[in-house]
């Protein structure tokens, strides 16, 4: 195959600029240390590399386990056409989270230490193990796309044989570490602002991960239908939207009850720094999406569902950032705003994610279950053949 120079589009230009700046920021981080590359301090040791890159990164990758559970455990087979993009997002997401951790860790070359130096009392230890194992599970769940492309049928049969326990393991590992990211903050009741500190943090992290997993699936399905020329399964996306409404409502009511039971309602309407950002979070993640979904025009249209999914994703990103940054500032006695290097590294990681997603959908049968035209006629026929043989669980 002859290599042709890709056309320079607006978004590709943006990506290149971000990556060049990201490379410079990476140089600063690893040659001059965390002090030069971040606005972190003894008072504020975790910034957006933990708050966004890790907490949000893992949350945004939740579509993989949500759909795998729906399709393969609850046997809702009609969601199959959207499972592969969700798995791809999840796999890329976890790889990027691991990459981002290398920036944030003071001694990144020791990242493997938790695997041999155990401390079962540490949430971080548990998260480390779960993320390592789940990334492996995702690699196994993702592998059929590669093997199909290479038309290797024997590995596909082996993968099929182990598929059910692997899916269950993946769902369990996700349940554990999605919630454990909330448990990270259980130990700081006197530092995290009462609007966010609750013994139920792990439960809220888990439920919101499911909502965000559904929102991300709607988001990426719509986006790739628009920009990568795949067919959008509107009926499926509508169903995803409805399930999301149920999860969001449940979460909202639960959150309200918890605030009330802890006597934290008095902090809601003070309109100070924390209260304002809390209200922004609730408006974006719960109030606006649920209000919009009351309208038939919104919940039955691709554009409306896309908008709602963007709101939900933004809302829960705000939630995670509120917990990691906003809620921790007052007790620390300092204010924290990320340095440009922190922002650029984060943007570069997101950019790499988008680019990798686009490239993977181009070369792997991610959407091929319902759209094979881009593989060419022969490949399409053989691809279809491979799909017939492919493991039930992973297709």
């Amino acid at each position, binding site marked *: 195959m002859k290599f042709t120079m890709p056309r320079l589009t607006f978004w590709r230009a943006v990506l290149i600029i971000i990556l060049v700046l990201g490379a410079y920021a990476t140089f600063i981080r690893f040659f001059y240390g965390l002090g030069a590359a971040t606005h972190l301090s003894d008072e504020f040791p975790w910034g957006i590399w933990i708050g966004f890159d890790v907490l949000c990164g893992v949350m945004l990758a939740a579509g993989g386990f949500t759909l795998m559970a729906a399709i393969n455990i609850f046997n809702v087979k009609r969601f199959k056409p959207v499972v592969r993009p969700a798995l791809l997002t999840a796999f890329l997401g976890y790889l990027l989270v691991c990459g981002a951790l290398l920036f944030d860790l003071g001694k990144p070359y020791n990242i493997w230490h938790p695997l041999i130096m*155990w401390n079962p009392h540490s949430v971080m230890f548990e998260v480390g193990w779960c993320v390592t194992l789940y990334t492996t599970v995702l690699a196994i769940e993702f592998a059929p796309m590669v093997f199909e492309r290479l038309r290797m049928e024997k590995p596909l049969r082996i993968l099929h044989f182990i598929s059910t326990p692997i899916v269950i393991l993946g769902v369990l590992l996700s349940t554990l570490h999605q919630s454990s990211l909330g448990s990270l903050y259980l130990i700081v009741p006197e*530092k995290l602002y009462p609007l966010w500190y609750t013994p139920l943090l792990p439960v809220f992290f888990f439920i919101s991960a499911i909502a965000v997993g559904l929102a991300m699936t709607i988001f990426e399905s719509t986006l790739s239908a628009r920009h990568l020329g795949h067919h959008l399964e509107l009926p499926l996306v509508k169903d995803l939207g409805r399930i999301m409404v149920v999860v969001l409502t449940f979460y909202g009511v639960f959150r309200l009850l918890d605030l009330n039971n802890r006597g934290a309602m008095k902090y809601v309407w003070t309109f100070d720094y924390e209260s304002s950002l809390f209200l922004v979070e609730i408006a974006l993640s719960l109030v606006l999406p649920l209000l919009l979904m009351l309208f038939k025009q919104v919940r039955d249209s691709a554009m409306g569902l896309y908008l709602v999914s963007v709101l939900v994703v933004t809302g829960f990103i705000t939630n995670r950032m509120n917990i990691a940054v906003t809620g921790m500032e007052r007790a620390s006695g300092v204010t924290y705003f990320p340095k440009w290097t922190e922002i650029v590294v984060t943007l570069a990681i997101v950019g790499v994610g988008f680019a990798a997603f686009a490239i993977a959908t181009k070369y792997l049968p991610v959407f091929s279950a319902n759209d094979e035209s881009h593989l060419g006629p022969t490949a399409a026929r053989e691809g279809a053949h491979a799909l017939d043989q492919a493991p039930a669980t992973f297709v």
Partner: protein
Amino acid sequence: MSKAILYDATLCIGCKQCEEACARENKLPYDEAVAKEEKTSDHKFTTVMSLPGDKYMRKLCMHCADPSCASVCPVGALEKTKAGPVVYDEGKCMGCRYCMVACPFSIPKYEWTKQIPRVRKCEMCKERTLTGGITACTEACPTGATMFGELDEMYALAQQRLRENPENYVKQIYGAQQGGGTSVLLLSSIPFEKFGYKSNLPNESLPALTFRVLSHIPDVVSLGFVLLGGIYWITNRREDVALAEGRQAAKPNGDKKTRGQS
């Protein structure tokens, strides 16, 4: 037995000899400029804070009985020793800084300017105290404001002082209960909050808040595996039954056939 430090602020004259001794013991730079810094940092493990009216208060690692830092460290780089000190192993540390986030007293400090940074904090002179010696700060203290000994003896002494001279002290031994108790006990004539010591710490150990949840993981895994496996079995068996009864000849898809295990 577990050792402890008792610091009685009413005996302190603010001479900062403890600071200097600490710097010498830990091979840290110490001069006029460092002496003026009234906060702990990666190059200052203890400090004597002062307020008008010759009020002084030391700040150093509290060496909690059940330390948050040791509980959250994913690699066990921080450890509570039987002898009392909470010690740090830089070889294990991967630099996640969860200890800094978790410590209720904000004690662990980081070498932000170094390419390969370490966590730094008071280790209660582990080379000395783990072999039966006393801490450098205690040794240097000219007035006996800082004392070192068995935890229960130090606690008894603190109680005795509160009992015998109640007019000299606020009615509290800071560290006796905070976060489940610490191996550094503080006495003061003015409220501890004035020096930045938190009054909102729970009396139970903070790691317990986490472990209450973490200890359920084996249950979640074992019950979850059975539950999810069961749901899988039921939902997929329905399909097989339907297939066997011939009700569902509509879509004999290739992938349905291959699921033979259930």
